[in-house]
């Protein structure tokens, strides 16, 4: 039965465990990014620290912490210091609404009900889009406050890129919203009950691909990493950052990648559900973890394969291809749902 005290205790446990797990995942995501960067080029990647170099990210963090924290004298200091956190915090918040197991039902833990979600939030999808948009402020403000031409250009590019891709993202997500009849991610996963052919990736394949492509742009990853295009802009918005402030942006990028992978798998790949009903003996969090890892691998594969698009190509993909396609997808979905019911 639902007991307010037990619920509070569970909530605190979940709220502490979730960021810890995500930070650990980030550490290994960074390690695997470097390892796979080597593998995709026929090299071996980091090998020194720990078995197969697996502790590389922890070595990176110690190095970053021990480095000097340089703040340009003519920068806007308050904004300069604040920007990494603006990029970093919103990424975590989205994790609160992502279900990683069954929600509601009978008691399952010591006679109490343990819900596998931090908050069954009614407008979870809107929260995801909003936090994604706030995260961009971190990049734009970092670019603005650095008082550096390269930084400013990087920040402006990030802003322009986000406007063009956020729209397509919102429209493609709306298709799922219509199918589930809810913006609550718990309800969306419930709507995908059954085996993998019941998931939304088959009826919403266009929307899913659009969301995936737009999320690469949202994550500032190659081929859409215009904001920190090394060859043109040194490091874009990161140019003036050093030490752990730079590391915060780096962490935010990977937290974002995990969160977006979780969102994509929740919306289109059945969230915590097993591909076959009988495989549900393996608990939900593990299935979600597997799906997140799979999507992260695809992100890395794409990053180390495709070169960066030109700025005008990026804009024309966003406005001329993804946006019309996502609107068409939404319209068709709406018509089909209103006709079929």
């Amino acid at each position, binding site marked *: 039965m639902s007991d307010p005290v037990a619920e509070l205790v569970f909530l605190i446990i979940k709220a502490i465990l979730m960021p810890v797990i995500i930070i650990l995942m980030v550490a290994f995501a960074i390690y695997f990014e470097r390892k*796979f960067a*080597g*593998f*995709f*080029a*026929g*090299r*071996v990647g980091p*090998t020194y620290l720990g078995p197969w170099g697996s502790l590389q990210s922890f070595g990176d963090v110690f190095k970053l912490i021990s480095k000097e924290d340089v703040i340009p004298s003519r920068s806007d200091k308050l904004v300069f210091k604040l920007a990494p956190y603006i990029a970093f915090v919103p990424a975590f918040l989205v994790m609160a609404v992502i279900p990683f197991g069954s929600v509601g039902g009978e008691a399952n833990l010591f006679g109490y009900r343990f819900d596998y979600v931090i908050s069954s939030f009614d407008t979870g999808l809107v929260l995801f889009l909003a936090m994604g948009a706030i995260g961009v402020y971190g990049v734009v403000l970092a670019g603005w406050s650095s008082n550096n031409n390269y930084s400013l250009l990087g920040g402006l590019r990030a802003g322009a890129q986000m406007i063009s891709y956020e729209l397509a993202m919102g429209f493609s997500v709306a298709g799922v919203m219509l199918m589930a009849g809810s913006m609550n991610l718990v309800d969306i996963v419930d709507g995908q009950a059954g085996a993998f052919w019941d998931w939304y990736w088959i009826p919403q394949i266009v929307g899913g691909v659009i969301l995936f492509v737009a999320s690469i742009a949202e994550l500032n990853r190659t081929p859409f990493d215009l904001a920190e295009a090394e060859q043109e802009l040194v490091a874009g918005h990161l140019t003036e950052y050093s030490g752990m402030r730079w590391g915060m942006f780096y962490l935010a990028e990977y937290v974002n990648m995990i969160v977006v992978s979780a969102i994509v798998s929740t919306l289109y790949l059945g969230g915590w559900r097993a591909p076959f009903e009988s495989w549900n003996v393996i608990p939900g969090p593990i299935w979600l973890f597997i799906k997140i890892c799979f999507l992260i691998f695809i992100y890395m*594969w*794409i990053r*180390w*394969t*495709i070169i960066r698009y030109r700025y005008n190509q990026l804009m024309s993909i966003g406005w001329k291809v993804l946006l019309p396609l996502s609107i068409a997808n939404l319209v068709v979905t709406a018509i089909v749902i209103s006709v079929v019911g």
Partner: protein
Amino acid sequence: MGLVDIVKKGAFVDILRGMSVTGTYFVVDKVTVEYPKEKLQTYPRFRGVHALLTDPDTGDTKCVACMLCATICPSQCIKIVGEQTPDGRSHPAGFDLDLSRCVFCGLCEEVCPEAAIVMTRHYELATLDKNDFYLDKQKLVANQVYAHKELYAIPGADGGATDAGRSAAEPDGAAGRVPGQGAAR
């Protein structure tokens, strides 16, 4: 843009093709040689640090102090002081070589009529002490353990021809990978 192009772009054909290339590299044997842990075997004519070979019969250097190497050396890093041995043979009393000026061109080895000065396969010469770069006769003679067995008979190792002699005279273990063999592609 024709219909074929649109279909190709919509199905990410080119991107998937690129990904299949990188995916192939993901699974094949890696080409990396993890240098301090594993080393490539040097080529037989590799020009590493110099050595003065000794004559297995007399135990003295083969060098006759003809000054040809000191003369041809483009960076003039070789200083030889010749002297007469009791049996009337010419030999170097001092043979100094300044590695910090040497360009490892190998001309001294080419010009030597006695095959006395040779370039070896030893290349890890980094040091914290600059004086280590000034090789005197003693150090040069000691370096002959690194000499290429394929090219020169090494004294003190049965003429360097037998297997036992080889392993005895190979201090840094020539068990490294042969260049080009690591990339099993």
